[in-house]
């Protein structure tokens, strides 16, 4: 076996894979945040809590009803999407004319409520969620061992990201969305129901977060605080990438996950903080973010 800079390739590629997986979740969450922010001008602090809710719904479906992973992959985002519709209709829509900060404060409150409710019911310790039968086991690639489920997460998240990119950048619906981001009044004047588009955007964004949550359930423990620790890192990812472009969010998410994984190999103490350090450097060199517009 060969060695790279004194690091065994097993460890290196193992961490690289873990980094890619973390990056997949950064990408999916920052993507949802960017789409919601673009349309609604709301930084959705509840994103992490709804991601956690997605994972919990999958776990509950399996524990209480015996409904497995594949169905959960559809049902959990659906349920969270409906919650999203309710949140947008009942609360967020009253804030669009106010300062953006109120949207952040409201969704922060919602995050506290959701997280608190789950913690009261299920305690702080994590619950294990089984890998679906179809994806158990793994392949030996020679230089590393690839668990099937992890490979699936990387591939599926990439597919999801590009599907989202395609919908927004290449379809008619996406064109309406982008137009409404620029000038909602004009798009409304053309007879397009902008308020309904806002509702659906929010629902779609949080459904994506819930979908990420279901995918995360077999990898990380399902615990009430899994969302809040992730969302803060995702905020840093968003600051680094800038919320201006969809592709930017995807690339930044995956890249930062990989950088974090590599840091774990070469300089383990800094792996928690490396993304924040990168954020500081980006703020110094390119304050608007790597893909961002000024603002």
């Amino acid at each position, binding site marked *: 076996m060969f060695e790279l800079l004194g690091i065994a390739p097993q460890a290196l590629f193992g961490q690289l894979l873990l980094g890619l997986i973390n990056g997949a979740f950064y990408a999916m969450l920052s993507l949802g945040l960017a789409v919601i922010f673009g349309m609604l001008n709301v930084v959705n602090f509840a994103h992490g809590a709804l991601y956690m809710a997605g994972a919990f719904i999958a776990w509950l479906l399996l524990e209480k009803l015996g409904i497995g992973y594949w169905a959960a992959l559809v049902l959990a985002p659906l349920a969270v999407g409906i919650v999203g519709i309710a949140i947008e209709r009942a609360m967020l829509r009253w804030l669009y004319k106010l300062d953006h900060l109120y949207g952040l404060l409201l969704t922060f*409150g919602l995050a506290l409520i959701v997280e608190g409710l789950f913690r009261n019911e299920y305690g702080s310790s994590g619950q294990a969620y089984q890998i679906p039968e179809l994806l158990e086991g793994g392949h030996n690639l020679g230089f590393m061992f690839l668990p099937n489920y992890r490979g699936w997460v990387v591939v599926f998240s990439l597919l999801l990201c590009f599907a989202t990119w395609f919908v927004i950048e290449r379809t008619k619906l996406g064109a309406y969305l982008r137009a409404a981001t620029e000038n909602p009044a004009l798009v409304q004047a053309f007879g397009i129901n902008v308020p309904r588009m806002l509702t659906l955007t929010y629902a779609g964004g949080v459904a994506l977060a819930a979908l990420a949550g279901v995918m995360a359930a077999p990898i990380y423990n399902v615990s009430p605080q899994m969302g809040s620790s992730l969302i803060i890192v995702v905020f840093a990812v968003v600051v680094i990438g800038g919320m201006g472009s969809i592709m930017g969010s995807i690339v930044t998410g995956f890249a930062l996950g990989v950088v974090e994984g590599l840091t774990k190999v070469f300089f383990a103490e800094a792996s928690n903080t490396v993304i924040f350090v990168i954020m500081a450097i980006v703020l110094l060199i390119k304050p608007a973010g790597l893909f961002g517009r000024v603002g």
Partner: protein
Amino acid sequence: MIAQAPALASIGTPRHHYVAFALMLGLAVAAPYLEYPVFLAKLLCYALFACAFNLLIGFVGLLSFGHAAFWGTAAYASAHFASKGFAIGTITIFKVAIPINIAIPPFPPEFAIIAGVVVAAVFGYIIGKLAIRRLGIYFAMVTLAFAQMIFFLAVQAPFTGGEDGLQLGNASRLAIGVLNLRDNLTLYWFVLGVFLIGFLFIYRVVHSPFGQVLKAIRENEPRAVSLGYRVERYKLMAFVLSAALAGLAGGTKVYVTGSAALGDVNWPMSGEVVLMALLGGMGTIFGPVAGAVVLISIEEFLAERAGAWVSVIQGGIFVLCVLAFRRGIIGEIARVIRKPL
């Protein structure tokens, strides 16, 4: 503009401010004979923390979502200097040993608190310098992210005591050589003194020409720039002041609770101070004090009865305030009497 409270009168101190201040002072003097003084002292620390936070959001329009970083690092610093003092032995750089050998014995309370303020101000300068490069909502995310970074450093650093935190233990609690802070009532008067210094300082800052420029930046930043003000410097100065005052509150808190712990630097603490200012009234002078008193009292009341529900109820208060009560308690009173408070 985030706060909807009426603009503060700029010159001189209006009579209703004297009345409100006298009312607050009267309550503060009577309170220790009605309630447990240590709890009240804790209230005052949070009230000062909320006032420091409000200096940024209320008067510059910057929402910091990472103020726990300053409160927490100051708490750690004060607890460290109070229990262990300050010592540097021999430093080795590139195999050259430089004997520095500074050893200062454990600090008395007033110096330990000042040390905490200095540490918080230094962190405030570094984080502020970076964060003010972004505006609005990004500013909130940047401050939150840096605060989380400091939290991770506090988890890893050897001198913070990890999960156990730092205990004050047997450290000296004789402030200014005469006040024995082990006595509950003396502790309360000492903390009230610190609070009043901080509160009046903020009042002075807000009503100074410097404060007027801050408000101009809040109302219309491009215009302030075009008038020739170096907006960045003003923002940074306000950020450092706010961080230092949050440090004053955090350092003082150590003498009330006897410890500094991870909870002091974690993000829920940042959220809590936001909620205090929101509930009391952002952009008002007295609002954060009222918000802190009400919120901490609610939490104290709930802690015995429904401890697990505290964060759910906090979240509920957030949602209610944002949807229906944006002026906050003092902001609503100010609207009714038609005078800025």
